[in-house]
């Protein structure tokens, strides 16, 4: 009956084919023409995971690891997988109550959702980790222990030198120099950690993982074909002697100031103490940011590296340098003498001298060992007023400040920890501005005795001792002696010898003899070490500060600079104890004990008593100590360390 409708079969077939052609055309565009879907699929399903290499380790000169990596464990939770577990037992191990447990689970869900891992308890102490590890099977699969690397400072010393790492700041993230960092990455923020960041950080690896719709990793993408492995950071080997550093930090306890000890033959820094200091372990792990705030706010400013950031007038310790300029310029010879009668009367106001007996400044050696103020005031004026420069203002002072610059003063020497201060070396322009153009060699005569406008960092003072000990040359002081597997010539500038003045050996001998006399028979006798000849110079730096808006004289800084053994020095040192008094009394014993420790490896029984006294001496302002929380902070770091080790 419906056979007459036969042609309609064709129509229906045509409709079917039409639809299929439409679908296939669409598929053609979707799968072949349009390329974006493959990319979108990868964006959907491929997780680019950065694999962090372990950071380079820092060793001291005796190959002790002084900054290394520690593995601590985080307890992480995947809320959706938590089965019926013995919550009470877990709470007991972690020492939290059920309410806290509930709160942490809720937090985890809020932060990362139910199916992804969140940290439940971070950086578990050793005993908690031990207990947990034994009974982990009770809490699985919801809970897992995940290892995490943190930096650790096994010697709890050299905080300001080694520095610390922390999360990159939002400002830096915008900086193109930090383009390779992502939000949340750690980088060196201070000390060697910062200077050698590029070396220590290593090369990050990239792992491509397949992920599902809830961002859960599901295994390697393409069997890891596109992955690149992480390369561990390179290790640094320092000239620092960690035992000497710890010893110095003990000696400086209760005092404010710094010690810088350098090996003059290499420029390698043996110890750099800034007191008061803190336990670097305070700035690792989960309490870093809290502790960092507390340390930065502390009244004693422990994060301020006084050895390179503070500047002081060098006082009498500057006299050897004045002598060297005089000798090099030919205005004096080693045999030059000055008739000092207890004061210098060359300028309108007399400058007092500690000595008044005739002949105490009959030659350079005597003048140095007696630290004659008149002698060096005179030598300074002879230098800057020398006729060949046409007087102080038409070149004399400029020439003098050039000398100072070549000694490493008035500019950053270039040590390999950041934030070094310049110090001040007055120039003609400086005085023109200060005295509005009306000045002469008398105005600046205090420079001759290391006072006045001149300021140096302790590092610059120690480096000056290297120059004297080396008889005219130095290497830029530095910590890092070598980098394992380094081919970037990062350290080349520290291998280069700097020659400062072309003074005859005999002239140096005169200065060195004068300085050995200081310790052998002069103001620095307390620094004597049995069997070792020491060249040294005491100083008492007058110190002015602004108190209640007026320039007021504060308690003097004690300064002592030295090198030993005098014939071929292996250690040059500068010690500053702020607001303590005479250099001989406070600074010289510290320098001497440091040198003995370094050269002889231990303190002789005879000097144990001195060591004890020095360690127990407190010169810090009690009012400041009362407000400081540093001691309790350091104690907490020690507790943490002993608790976890």
């Amino acid at each position, binding site marked *: 009956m419906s056979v007459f409708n036969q042609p309609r079969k064709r129509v229906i077939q045509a409709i079917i084919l039409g639809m299929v052609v439409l*679908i296939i055309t669409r598929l053609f565009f*979707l799968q*072949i023409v349009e390329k974006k879907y493959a990319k979108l*699929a990868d964006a959907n*399903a491929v997780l680019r995971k950065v694999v962090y290499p372990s950071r380079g380790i820092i060793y001291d000169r005796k190959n002790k690891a002084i900054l290394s990596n520690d593995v601590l464990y985080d307890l992480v939770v995947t809320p959706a997988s938590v089965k019926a577990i013995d919550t009470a037992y877990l709470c007991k191990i972690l020492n939290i109550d059920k309410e806290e447990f509930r709160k942490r689970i809720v937090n985890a869900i809020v932060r990362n959702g139910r199916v992804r891992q969140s940290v439940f308890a971070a950086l578990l102490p050793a005993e908690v980790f031990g207990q947990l590890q034994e009974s982990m099977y009770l809490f699985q699969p919801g809970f897992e222990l995940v290892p995490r690397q943190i930096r650790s400072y096994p010697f709890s010393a050299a905080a300001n030198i080694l520095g610390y790492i922390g999360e990159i700041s939002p400002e830096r993230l915008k900086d193109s120099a930090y383009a390779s960092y992502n939000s949340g990455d750690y980088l060196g923020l201070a000390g060697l950690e910062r200077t050698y960041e590029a070396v220590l950080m290593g090369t990050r690896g990239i792992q491509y993982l397949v992920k599902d719709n809830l961002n859960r990793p599901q295994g390697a993408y393409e069997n890891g074909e596109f992955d690149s492995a992480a390369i561990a950071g390179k290790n640094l080997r320092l000239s620092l002697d960690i035992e000497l550093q710890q010893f110095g930090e003990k000696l400086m306890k209760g005092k404010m100031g710094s010690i810088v000890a350098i090996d003059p033959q290499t420029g390698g820094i043996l110890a750099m103490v800034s007191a008061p200091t803190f336990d670097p372990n305070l700035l690792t792990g989960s309490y870093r940011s809290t502790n960092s705030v507390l340390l930065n706010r502390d009244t004693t400013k422990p994060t301020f590296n006084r050895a390179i950031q503070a500047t002081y007038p060098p006082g009498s310790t500057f006299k050897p340098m004045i002598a060297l300029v005089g000798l090099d310029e030919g205005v004096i010879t080693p045999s030059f003498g000055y008739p000092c009668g207890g004061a210098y009367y060359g300028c309108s106001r007399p400058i007092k001298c500690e000595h008044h007996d005739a002949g105490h400044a009959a030659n350079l050696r005597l003048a140095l060992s007696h630290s004659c103020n008149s002698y060096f005031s005179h030598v300074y004026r002879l230098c800057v007023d020398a006729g060949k420069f046409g007087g102080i203002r038409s070149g004399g002072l400029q020439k003098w400040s050039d000398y100072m610059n070549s000694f490493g003063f008035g500019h950053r020497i270039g040590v390999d920890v950041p934030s070094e201060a310049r110090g001040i070396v007055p120039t003609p322009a400086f005085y023109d501005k200060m005295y509005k153009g009306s000045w002469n060699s008398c105005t600046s005569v205090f420079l001759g005795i290391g006072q006045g406008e001149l300021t140096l960092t302790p590092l610059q003072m120690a480096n000056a001792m290297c120059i004297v000990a080396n008889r005219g040359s130095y290497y830029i002081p530095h910590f890092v002696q070598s980098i394992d597997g380094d081919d970037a010539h990062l350290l080349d500038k520290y291998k280069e010898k700097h020659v400062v003045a072309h003074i005859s050996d005999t002239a140096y001998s005169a200065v060195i003899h004068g300085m050995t006399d200081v310790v052998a028979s002069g103001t620095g006798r307390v620094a004597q070490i049995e069997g070792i000849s020491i060249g040294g110079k005491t100083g008492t730096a007058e110190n002015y500060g602004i108190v209640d808006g007026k320039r007021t004289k504060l308690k003097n800084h004690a300064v002592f600079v030295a090198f030993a053994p005098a014939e071929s020095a292996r250690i040059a040192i500068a010690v500053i104890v702020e607001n303590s008094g005479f250099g001989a009394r406070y600074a010289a014993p510290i320098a001497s004990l440091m040198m003995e420790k370094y050269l002889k490896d231990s303190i002789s029984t005879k000097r144990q008593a001195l060591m004890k006294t020095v360690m127990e001496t407190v010169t810090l302002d009690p009012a400041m100590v009362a407000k400081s929380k540093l001691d309790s902070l350091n104690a907490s770091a020690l507790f943490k360390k002993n608790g976890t080790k």
Partner: protein
Amino acid sequence: MNRSQAKLTQGIDWPIVGLYLALVIIGIMSIFAAEYRGDDNVWQNIIHLNKNYSRQIMWFGVSLVLASIIWLTDSKFFTATSNLLYAGGLLLLLLVLGIGKDVKGSHSWLVIGGFQFQPAELTKLCTNLALAKYLSSQETDFTKLRSRLIAAAIALIPAAIIILQDETGLALVYFAFFLVMFREGLPGILLVIAFSGIVLVLSALLVDKYVLFSIFSVITALVIYFMRREIKRKRSRLLVILGVYAFCSIFVMFVVPFAFTKVLKDYQVRRIEVMLGKENDPKATYNTRQSMIAIGSGGFWGKGYLKGTQTRFDFVPEQSTDFIFCTIGEDFGFIGSVIFIGLYVALLFRIIFVAERQRSTYSRVYAYGVASIIFFHLAINVSMTIGLAPVIGIPLPLVSYGGSSLMTFTMLIFIMLRLDADRQMVLR
């Protein structure tokens, strides 16, 4: 019937059986691909029936049993019980309306024992039988309007109940029966009108209604101008033209906005708008977008079986049921998709071929019904996964996971094969 053991499979149309088996097996493999994770213990999963693919294997077994039973049944049984089965189907649909269970926002499931069952799938079969019965009866003269209305009612009554169950997608499939009716003599102009209607709805949605109204006015004016001679000859032409103009204008100005705000559900409106590119709400576009990413990333050759990242890691929702085509598109690429769709085209054309060789109207109408239902499912489902149609939740025949669907299509096909084997008989 006294068929001997040797003649048990006599008269069976092997090409259709082959295509049927191919599609079901591809379906099971695709469901497996959508669920499989590297560390799965496949055999254990199959034994424990705890994965969709293992359950689909079970349903395949059940379907084969059903197919065998149908094959052993007398053809006359189907013609005799068509109306009864239809009535039973309608009752079942009404029953669901009363005691059904809500699954994913649709009130269309019955729970029997541990299994969920969707009667709306089964009633496609009942409706097809009833329509075949009605159109083949000697009293029916399909050139009469009355017969056409009754046929339309047979097709649309189940659809109406299913809409009440909030399963609009499945209800849409019942419009497939108009293709059958077209074959049986429904005027071709109806197809043209239907097509124009779709264009009208789409333009009403896409173009501002005032702009459309202006366009209609201009067109009408031009038509009247160019047909002025004909209109002079026959005044009623003008009335027809003006009538069409009035209908179109009222439709776009009032009916479509009303339907959108009052009749359709929010999510349906959103899906339509997404499909038309009018809305970019990422939540509303998520399914289509992920599905298009999965298929698009397959490229020409595909990523290889079990290598698809999108389907295996749950980016595509409903990937073993409505979006199963994504797995094929991603793993086997353009080539695989074309071959896969080619299998369906082969099946459809073979069914049409089988339909046309029937001597009895009953068998022909029934076979065309099977083809139309499969075609509607295929067209809507695949169009949805590639962003050509709004998201309408209907399965891909024989391939999508789901017992109700697989069993229904198995029965549809095997009853047709049974009828075909007996094509020498006159069935009414």
